[in-house]
């Protein structure tokens, strides 16, 4: 393989991101400004956090279709408590995160007990969580939050550093450390790579499977709090397209649906690519619907590229094996 080709294969995400930034800097006047770039981070902080969670589940060979309404449910529960209960903000945040963990636990337990693919399990819980969040909120939205809570999504430290972006970085680092530095992270890769081999190697695969869902949903709950704070309202339909955005970002970032591989830095870049695209297209005055078309096209291209890489990998392996066989006579 040529050196150029290797570089492109390895760094295609940063390359695409830089190309997108250059493109929008040229065709629009307002894209390349501190204000707008900060804005892209603020807009996407919650997406990055939720995507880290989904990445965890997908590396383990699963998927979480219920993410949008986990966010919705956490949002209305937190919102109602914030508006009416008078509990300290910290307590409400803890309750919200525990609720997230519970929702993930339910996803995981259904998956292992019914022995179904997580896609099916979380498709069912998606509908359930959606229903509960509307019933619980009475289809209302909650607002009038204390300043301490609004600060999470709206306040800037030193006048330039958004708290939501700090949270994003912290959550990113937690995900990174967990996947790369802890043995539990290694178990997540292992059960995604080959669940039966992992089980025979002494890994409690059911525990790891449920664990991946719980951790993912804690990330999703944090994402929900960030967005609820930024929007200033708690609503069941807080993030209806999160499921699309997060899974797209994971696929774009190179996680396959069979699991076992992927790294969080690529996930981050992918969210940023999608974020830059949607921000740039807004500045160009494209409608939301034309943006959908573009995002869909980007996803198709990403999948095609991923497939191409896999096939060339298989070819390479086949060649290697043939050569060793020849050498062995």
């Amino acid at each position, binding site marked *: 393989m040529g050196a150029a080709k290797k570089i492109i294969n390895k760094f295609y995400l940063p390359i695409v991101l830089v190309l997108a930034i250059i493109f929008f800097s040229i065709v629009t006047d307002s894209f390349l400004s501190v204000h707008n770039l900060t804005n892209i981070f603020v807009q996407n902080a919650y997406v990055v956090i939720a995507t880290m969670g989904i990445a965890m589940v997908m590396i383990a060979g699963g998927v979480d279709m219920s993410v949008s309404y986990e966010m919705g449910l956490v949002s209305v529960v937190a919102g109602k408590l914030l508006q009416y209960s008078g509990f300290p903000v910290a307590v409400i945040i803890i309750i919200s995160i525990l609720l997230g963990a519970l929702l993930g636990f339910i996803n995981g337990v259904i998956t292992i007990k019914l022995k179904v693919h997580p896609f099916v399990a979380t498709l069912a819980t998606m509908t359930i969580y959606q229903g509960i969040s509307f019933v619980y909120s009475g289809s209302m939205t909650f607002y009038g939050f204390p300043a301490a809570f609004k600060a999470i999504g709206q306040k800037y430290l030193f006048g330039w550093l958004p708290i939501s972006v700090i949270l994003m970085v912290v959550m990113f680092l937690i995900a990174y450390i967990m996947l790369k530095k*802890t*043995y539990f992270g*290694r178990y997540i890769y*292992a059960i995604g*790579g*080959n669940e039966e*081999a*992992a089980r025979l190697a002494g890994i409690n695969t059911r525990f790891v499977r449920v664990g991946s869902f719980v951790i993912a949903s804690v990330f999703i709950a944090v994402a929900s709090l960030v967005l609820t704070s930024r929007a200033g309202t708690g609503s069941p339909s807080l993030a209806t397209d999160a499921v699309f955005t997060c899974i797209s970002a994971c696929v774009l970032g190179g996680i396959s649906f069979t699991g076992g591989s992927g790294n969080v830095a690529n996930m981050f870049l992918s969210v940023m690519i999608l974020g830059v695209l949607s921000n740039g297209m807004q500045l160009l005055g494209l409608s939301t619907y034309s943006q959908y078309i573009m995002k869909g096209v980007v996803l198709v291209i990403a999948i095609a590229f991923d497939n191409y890489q896999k096939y060339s990998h298989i070819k390479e392996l086949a060649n290697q094996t043939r050569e060793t066989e020849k050498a*062995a006579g």
Partner: protein
Amino acid sequence: MDQKVILSLQGLTKRYPGVIANNNINLDIYKGEIHTLVGENGAGKSTLIKSLSGAVIPDEGKIIWEGLEYQHMNPKLSRELGIEIVYQELCLVDSLTVAENICLGEKKGSLVDYKYYNTVAKAAFHRIGIKMNPMKMVGDLTTAQQQLVEIAKAISKGVKLLVLDEPTAPLTNEEIEGLFRVMTTLKEEGVTMIYISHRMDEIFRVSDRITVLRDGESIKTINTADTNRSELINLMVGRQLTESFPERTYHSNEKMLEVEHAYGMGDSDISLYIKKGEIVGLGGLLGAGRTELARMIYGADPMQKGTVKINGKEVYLKNTSNGIAAGIGLIPEDRKRQGVLLNFGIDWNTTISCVKKLSHIGFMNFDKIADVAKKYVNKLNIAAPNISVKVESLSGGNQQKVVLAKTLATESNLLIFDEPTRGIDVGAKQEIYHIMADIANEGKSILLISSDMEELLGMSDRIYILAEGRMAGCLEKGEISQVRIMEMISNAMEEEKR
């Protein structure tokens, strides 16, 4: 019987890396006969019938079918010529009806013509003299009935040569009688049959002639009337030992493992023990329940009843981590699917079972991980440029060593080797034998499951024989021979039938 040759194999040879599956096979099949192929696991029967179906392309030799010469078959051609194979794993679609299955792949008009399908199915059943409702779903049928559907399917395609690969293995006695009736009917109609079975009494009942395969070679073809059981067994096993097996030094009377009255996963009432420093073999045919027993001892599958003792203490194994904690290690039979994580490095694979111990408050110690990986790469002589190289790019032998490294890294005292040298070249085989001897010399114990008779005989201090999920007997070092093993298996299988 008229002695017209319908099929003649001449010099058929098929090589795989490290093993010759079929070596210069010459075989004539007469028109209208039932010809039995016998041989141990790995004797080359499967490769032979796959050459007939076109699933395997022979490297050398030719296939002469009704006087016409072919270099090799392909699935379409062999079907057109009238060769049909009923494999052990039936190829039916559970969610379609019997009639649809029989007519699968046939095109008549552009719509599904159930009336036509049913007529075809009924005609086929009529020819083999059985009654079955063609509208039934195949998934609702018993295995025996499904087998008959396969045969009917072959009939409706105008079969001239029907190959039956161990058809009686999953059947009850009555069902076997039914199958034999169908075979007799087919024979009267002039259909030639190749029949594969391990069961001696059946072989003598149904076949006209018998060909013995051994180590990929056709040893002898005999008229059934001119031979007997013990001659067949001798022909099947009579081989020269060519491998050399390492010396062993450790002897002890202490028991490492005791299994008492174990039931589960198709096995019943199995008891055995292994002493420290001992290598104990587990012999038997494929499907005898050996792997199932191994997995239960390891904790990978639930044991319904029975006790497992390690070092005299009873252990309760609910999952594989219990098994590892009890000091048991398993080298599974399917290396790629159960043994290694293919797209992970040697270091990951070697330490995946013990990574928790190499961690501090959840964080992995990468230095320790690298040390462990390097230690075993050196100890087991794993050929790789570095420890982070992905396991998928290693050869089979080196992959197996990685699995071994993973198990050794957990410091287990009892290692279960399930087909440790399958698909591995001769050199790597010898290395694995030496590693096994080293392990035993350290006072650890080994349970060896192998379908390679030479390996089983050469490595084992004692051999337990399983047949159809039951203990058929145990042979001590002095009394082990291939003939004894095969006799025990076939005796046990006949007892089982009664």
